[in-house]
């Protein structure tokens, strides 16, 4: 556990880092960034709290099994979304221009960017974001746990 200044800064910055990460994931198909970048930003917030509070406190809040489960669930969502369009081809974008969720048609010309477009791409961005969030956070957690064993 580090000093009270570092812990106060971490408490203040943690929600903003999380919100920015989920913004990058959710707007992956219209602005720069995507699933991997947003997941890395969220994992940076987890690393900030982990460094500020130390492993003994953080292991009560964040379970490694939950992070590993998030990794598996993200990869499963990605591959299932790819297999649903298999009647035409693998990774077929069956939701684009269909009128269902994320299925609006993009108007012609310069526009500010509409979220409810692009078919299966936002779903795949979300799946990759969940997967990278779990994977990079579990790297941090195992790094802290292994360091403790070496010291003892």
């Amino acid at each position, binding site marked *: 556990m580090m000093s009270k200044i570092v812990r106060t800064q971490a408490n203040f910055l943690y929600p903003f880092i999380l919100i920015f990460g989920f913004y990058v994931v959710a707007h992956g198909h219209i602005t720069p*960034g995507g699933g*991997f*970048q947003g997941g*890395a930003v969220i994992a*940076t917030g987890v690393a900030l709290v982990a460094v500020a509070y130390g492993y003994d406190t953080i292991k009560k809040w964040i379970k490694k099994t939950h992070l590993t489960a998030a990794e598996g669930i993200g990869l499963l969502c990605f591959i299932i979304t790819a297999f649903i369009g298999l009647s035409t081809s693998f990774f077929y974008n069956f939701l684009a221009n269909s009128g269902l969720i994320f299925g609006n048609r993009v108007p012609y010309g310069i526009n500010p960017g509409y979220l409810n477009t692009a078919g299966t791409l936002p779903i795949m961005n979300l799946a990759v974001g969940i997967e990278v969030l779990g994977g990079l956070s579990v790297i*941090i957690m195992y790094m802290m746990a292994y*360091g403790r064993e070496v*010291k003892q």
Partner: protein
Amino acid sequence: MIEDIIQILVLIGMMITAYLSVKSRDLMECAILLGVFSFLLSLEFFILQAPDVAIAEAGIGAGLTTAIFVMAVRKTTRWEVEE
């Protein structure tokens, strides 16, 4: 014109931080200097109009690897020793 000046300053800053992180004996200082190096590299990617790579570099390079280096230095010795 202003872009060239910013680019030259960023590249000089990257060279200085890389040299100092190789030369320094304090390993915590080396980790922080590598974080500054990654941040300047992401700024350079942004100037070269690759914001996608810049976000990835700022997240992975300046955030996660710095945290991992700080953890590793805290679990071991802080000063570099002669073998």
